[in-house]
């Protein structure tokens, strides 16, 4: 029966509850941690959290097992000549790293040092600030982010349209009449670039109110199952959006008054749409013209509507253009900044303004050394890393610090990245496990998990459907001898004579021995911001101290604010700036692109998120890998028959760039014919034994990092809609056994 698991062995203190939030995905759900004697007894959803309202998923609730994982790295590890690791003290590790970095800097300059930011940094404000700070202080152009395998197009479009990379509108699903959901599967992912609590339920609310939700996806995803589904060919999104806009403008359905009022440069729209043909778009998207027309008319006619898009359209070859057209669709139908539309959130710390002030935001202020990619928010794209390592010359990448990331699996052409990493003079990994990436590192510096450090949802608070504020201290003591990422980075910075901060005067302060902590900086940002207490001038306002003392999240409003466009814009004219050459170039590129499938690689592969998985994370947790968890390739029955695949067959997938063996095929008409779906982030190596035992194959052996294959304006990798061919390995495997 359901008896709470009580720790009876230690009789001392009674269990206490503490309200925290989850740092696994962009839902940032409120949780209640029950703690006794510094042991985590259990994690449960926080029913009082304003946004997540009692929801949490099995990943977040299992996170105690990550914290307590016996495979976790608990003290700094140094790689020996034979490739094995030995434990060393922090002192030794940091000193040696400092020495080696200084030696590299001496020969190659500070600009030869690289930093790589993983997804997890989005819940780690200290690491986030120090990363940007270190890169700024080093004046290196080698700041890489997993965002460039994910979402770079978003950053770019926001910078150009709204004046800040980080100012991203979110769909007001709670009040909309029509939600268009493109290439997103919130029923499984729980949302991204939109921190909507109880995402699935909020979407169901739309249809319950009599509204509509239309899901655009090559796969009848878990979300599509719940709503109307319109299958689309992988990477057909830009075409669909362009065609919808074409219909809207041709049929006079656009809200010209809104365009006039809210934007400048809207003349570009007509120019962009002029050469678009519905027939061609229909071919490319695999959606009949009549259905595109109907969808466009319905979207435009809805009293309020929001088009929301994610991975399906943000990791393809036209990611930037897709995101641009998505925003234009929202704007041109009068849905920007209005109830039920495409709204700006109300973060409790105005990160957008902060980053703007720190001049951390921008686009194309410089170009990358080898590939000439424009910078996005001060970062260079991941696709370039191998070439930046192997191409000699000034600014050649010689040393890399990888923070909370596993690019050896998650980056495109992962094999090439691994080879390139071997050529670095120094590779440092801050990771809780020995992963495919960290096992290659010269030093593994083990950080705390989010249960063991102070935090606030720095990233997701900027996208919250229900504005709220929460800042929590460490829930549990750090295990073993692990340290906060921010501390580690600061210690390394000290040893190479920098302050990991990029504000004016920071380095000078550093010389005086003053190193403002990330918490201090963020607190200043909070207290001087729109929700702040202005250092006492506004007693009802917020401060770090106040929030730390508050158990749970504080609700700031019932829903997304509207009518705040002018206040939020960072553009000079306080309007949405629609006209930029890059979008014209991109439209020309789209129209000239071929969407015919290569006959040698006749199928199109898309990646898939699964309920109990988060990219490459969490595969070492029993609860998340038990119950018939196998990496499976989903394929439509028609394609299965054509290529001789039987249910359960091991399958070989080949792309022009590589080949993998997937353990099992799953034949299902959830797939659109011609497309395949494969969960990514599998095929582990290293010290996380369970993750390794789970098996599977790395999706990114099939992808490419070729510069011309990326989304050109943002450098975002194309990891969706990969052209592949397949064959069954049934007989091969049988012969072997």
């Amino acid at each position, binding site marked *: 029966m359901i008896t709470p698991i009580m720790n009876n062995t230690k009789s001392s203190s009674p269990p206490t509850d503490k309200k925290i939030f989850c740092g696994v995905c962009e839902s940032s759900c409120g949780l209640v941690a029950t703690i006794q004697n510094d042991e985590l007894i259990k994690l449960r959803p926080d029913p009082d959290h304003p946004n997540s309202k009692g929801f949490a998923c099995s990943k977040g609730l299992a996170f105690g097992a990550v914290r307590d994982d016996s495979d976790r790295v608990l003290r700094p590890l140094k790689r020996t000549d034979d490739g094995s690791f030995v434990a060393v003290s922090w002192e030794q590790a940091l000193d040696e790293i400092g020495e080696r970095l200084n030696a590299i800097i001496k020969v190659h300059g500070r600009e030869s040092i690289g930093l790589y930011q993983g997804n997890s940094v989005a819940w780690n404000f200290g690491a986030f600030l120090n990363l940007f700070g270190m890169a700024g202080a080093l004046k290196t152009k080698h700041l890489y982010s997993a965002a460039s395998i994910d979402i770079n197009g978003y950053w770019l479009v926001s910078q150009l349209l709204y004046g800040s990379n980080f100012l991203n509108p979110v769909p007001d699903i709670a009040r909309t009449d029509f939600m268009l959901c493109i290439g997103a599967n919130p029923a499984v992912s729980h949302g991204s670039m939109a921190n909507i609590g109880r995402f699935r339920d909020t979407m169901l609310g739309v249809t319950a109110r009599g509204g509509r939700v239309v899901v655009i996806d090559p796969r009848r995803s878990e979300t599509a199952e719940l709503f109307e589904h319109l299958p689309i060919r992988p990477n057909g999104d830009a075409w669909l959006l362009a065609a919808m806009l074409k219909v809207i403008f041709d049929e006079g359905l656009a809200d010209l008054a809104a365009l006039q009022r809210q934007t400048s440069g809207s003349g570009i729209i007509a120019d962009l749409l002029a050469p678009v043909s519905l027939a061609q778009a229909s071919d490319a998207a695999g959606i009949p013209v009549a259905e595109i027309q109907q969808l466009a008319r319905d979207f435009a006619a809805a009293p309020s509507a929001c088009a929301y898009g994610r991975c399906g359209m943000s990791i393809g070859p036209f990611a930037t253009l897709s995101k641009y057209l998505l925003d234009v669709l929202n704007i041109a139908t009068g849905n920007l900044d209005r109830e039920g539309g495409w709204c700006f959130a109300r973060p409790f710390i105005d990160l957008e303004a902060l980053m703007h002030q720190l001049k951390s935001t921008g686009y194309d202020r410089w170009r990358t050394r080898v590939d000439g990619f424009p910078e996005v928010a001060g970062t260079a794209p991941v696709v370039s890393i191998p070439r930046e390592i192997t191409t000699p010359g000034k600014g050649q990448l010689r040393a890399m610090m990888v923070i909370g990331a596993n690019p050896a699996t998650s980056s495109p052409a992962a094999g090439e990245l691994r080879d390139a990493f071997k050529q670095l003079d120094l590779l440092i990994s801050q990771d809780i496990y020995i992963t495919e990436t960290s096992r290659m590192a010269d030093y593994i510096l083990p950080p705390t998990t989010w249960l063991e450090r102070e935090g606030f949802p720095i990233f997701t608070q900027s996208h919250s459907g229900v504005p709220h504020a929460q800042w929590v201290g460490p829930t549990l003591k750090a295990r073993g001898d692990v340290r906060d990422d921010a501390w580690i980075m600061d210690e390394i910075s000290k040893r190479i004579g920098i302050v990991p901060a990029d504000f004016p005067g920071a380095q000078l302060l550093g010389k005086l021995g003053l190193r403002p902590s990330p918490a201090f900086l963020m607190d200043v940002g909070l207290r001087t911001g729109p929700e702040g207490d202005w250092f006492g001038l506004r007693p009802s306002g917020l401060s770090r101290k106040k929030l730390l003392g508050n158990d749970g999240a504080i609700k700031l409003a019932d829903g997304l604010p509207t009518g705040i466009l002018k206040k939020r814009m960072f553009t000079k004219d306080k309007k949405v700036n629609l006209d930029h050459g890059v979008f014209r170039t991109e439209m020309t590129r789209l129209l000239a692109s071929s969407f015919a499938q290569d006959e040698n690689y006749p199928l199109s592969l898309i990646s898939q998120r699964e309920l109990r998985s988060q990219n490459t994370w969490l595969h070492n947790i029993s609860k998340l*890998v*038990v119950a*018939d*968890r196998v990496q499976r390739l989903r394929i439509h029955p028609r394609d299965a028959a054509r290529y001789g695949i*039987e*249910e*359960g067959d091991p399958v070989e997938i080949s792309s022009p760039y590589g080949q993998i063996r997937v353990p099992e095929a799953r034949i299902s008409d959830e797939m659109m014919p011609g497309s395949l779906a494969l969960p990514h982030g599998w095929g582990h190596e290293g010290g996380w034994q*369970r*993750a390794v035992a789970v098996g599977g194959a790395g999706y990114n052996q099939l992808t490419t990092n070729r510069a011309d294959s990326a989304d050109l304006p943002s450098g975002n990798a194309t990891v969706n809609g990969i052209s592949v061919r397949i064959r069954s390995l049934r007989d091969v495997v*049988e012969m072997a056994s």
Partner: protein
Amino acid sequence: MISERPLRIAIVGSGPAGMYAAGHLLEGPGGTFINGGLNQIVRRPVEVDVLERLPTPWGLIRSGVAPDHPDKKRMAAIYDSIARRQGFRFIGNVQVGRDVSPADLSQWYDGVIYAVGADDERRLGITGEDLRGSDSARAFVSWYNGHPDFSDLQFDLRCERAVLVGNGNVAMDVARILFSPISALHNTDIASHALDALGKSQLKEIVILGRRGPEHAAFNYPELMELGELADTAISVEGADLSLTPENADYETQLKVAALAKLCKEKSQGSRRIVFRFNAAPTAIVGGGQVAQINVVDRRDQSEQVLNAGLVLAAIGYRGLAIDGLPFDDVRGVIPSCDSRIVDNGIAIAGAYVTGWIKRGPKGIIGSNKKCARDAVTAVMVDVDSNLLPMEGTLSAAQVLEAINARVSVTLGFSGWQKIDRQEQSDGRAQGRPRLKMTATGAMLGLVTAG
């Protein structure tokens, strides 16, 4: 001492119990759910041979579970997945006790887990039981599911009334299949000989006899409710007053009885009828060669009644079948065991284990066997750690296959079964059916050996 080589275990029977045992022995990285949490119970490499007397695996999933329950048949996917794990081997068409003996197995393997299910049935023990038209529900179920041992049976359904003795879930399955529209059954994997016979059915009434009152009815709620979904079929109750269910009955009982009362009310009309007759025991089956009637006594007042019937099926329980060379509890119809270890006169036989229906009797549903198998595997692992397994002289995988093939002319591996499986599915597709079952062992083996 713990040697380097993998532990070699034979599992006899590829039904749910056997396959779960294989699954637990070839433990997945997520571990095994035991005592409220996930734990690793197997700490060394294991090789498993699953020996099955038929060419087809999955036991009652294939030959018991009703064809119109495709969701439950999907359990096969779980077993498929287990079969793909490293260390698994299927050896079909080997009957333990006939082709190879338990003594052979205990020599060849480190340990043997018997999961042979319940291959026999309980008998009514009344006169006329052997007349044509009288059989066990087990035979009928196996027949409509295409079990090769039962494919030659003939059931003549050109009569007005069938009587089912016993009112458990098997009786519900049988009643439902008897009254399901042929068009619906066409979309299932029911054996085509059964489809033909059911197409000729003239049955108008099915009487389901229960020895005791409705509060003791053996059927479960979902199976009862499915009868309510049959079109044009009236449901009624005789021999009991449903309003008299004891107040203190448990929730499930109350739910069932209330549901039955509701069905009777809502389904009072129909050209066909299902009658639940309670407090009724059969005393004799009568007829000249072919069943003509069944005599029933009302156990409340001992009054006798004669029901005309052309078909009588006894659905009073499956029963285990003894295996030559192993002890057998003839009263309970199981292999006697203690904590999954087979015992002979109270003494455990080293390295011999039992799980599933042959251990617990024909009780519990598919998943009950998962826990049961887990416990058997736990016992194996405890005995390995205590050096209680007879590990001397164990044969290698290749040697075992050689030894078996010396005794059985044709065996098949998992790929052989997959060949049958694919053939059945493609034959089915050709007829617009999910699967067309092969029902003769010879034909199946022919297909497999055809190269």
